[in-house]
């Protein structure tokens, strides 16, 4: 499973539809403070099923929808789509034989959230199952958020064991 591209529209500061093409095994994301780099990382976490608004720095899930600037109005929905190259395998379940897998998530202002795999509407559960056993998933150790690396080593013994259990 490799990441091919990421499309964002209305997600946090990415109000205009934007596509990131990920070429190569080592991709650096750079730019000044506050320009949107962490928002990109959170977009991946979100499309893979993140259910806690606090993990995305918000009070509610709708906080990921672009909420306007001095010169732009807020929008009514946010969507993120992540395309995977599955030609070498890795995905589980009914999409395991597809060469490319697109996972999409959409949220409306009223809080209604929908998931899609290859344009077919699915449940959040199906997105999680797609990556069973791969360590991928919004809570998996595969995504290390800003300022969380120090927390790992100073975690309480109970928290550290939970961290380890998720890896098992």
């Amino acid at each position, binding site marked *: 499973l490799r990441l091919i591209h990421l499309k964002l529209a209305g997600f946090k500061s990415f109000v205009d539809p934007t596509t990131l093409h990920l070429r190569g095994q080592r991709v650096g994301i*750079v730019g000044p403070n506050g320009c949107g*780099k*962490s928002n990109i*990382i959170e977009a991946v976490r979100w499309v893979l099923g993140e259910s806690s608004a606090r993990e995305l720095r918000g009070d509610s899930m709708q906080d990921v929808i672009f909420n306007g600037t001095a010169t*732009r109005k807020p929008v009514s929905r946010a969507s993120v789509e992540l395309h995977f190259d599955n030609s070498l395998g890795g995905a589980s379940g009914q999409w395991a034989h597809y060469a490319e897998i697109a996972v999409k998530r959409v949220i409306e202002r009223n809080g209604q959230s929908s998931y899609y795999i290859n344009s077919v509407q699915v449940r959040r559960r199906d997105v999680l199952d797609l990556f069973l056993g791969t360590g991928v998933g919004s809570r998996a150790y595969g995504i290390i958020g*800003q300022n969380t690396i120090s927390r790992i080593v100073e975690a309480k013994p109970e928290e*550290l064991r939970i961290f*380890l259990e998720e*890896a*098992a």
Partner: protein
Amino acid sequence: TRERLQHTYDAVNRNFSELFATLFDGGQARLELLGEEILDSGVQVFAQPPGKRNSTIHLLSGGEKAMTALALVFAIFRLNPAPFCLMDEVDAPLDDSNTERFCAMVRKMSQHIQFVFVTHNKIAMEMAQQLIGVTMQESGVSRIVEVDVEEALRMVEEIA
């Protein structure tokens, strides 16, 4: 199940000790169970950089804790490799020499794992095969630009 957790624990422990020694060029580290029963005992990290005899991990420096945490995260990756790893400014507390060691490990692991990393650090930018620049020309609105790696590093050196 106890057997599976024990297997995970032992494997992560072996990897952790090994990766710590690589990142610190020596020293020792391991996980420790605080209780008898692995199914509900707390886990803590024991880590000593080369030559040091600190009793707890809390006394270590900011950069030492970050390197130790990276060794643990990468130890889990070795056991159960996710296809990609996203890292947001994990190199922030590292000095230049530790950043180089971190980059060396990422280069090695990137043979089988795709790394996407947010960074402000010039040394970390050097290991990128692709650089995605994020800008906010219009206040509050993010846009993407492709950045040429060679070009970016040359620009950075001019400012320095």
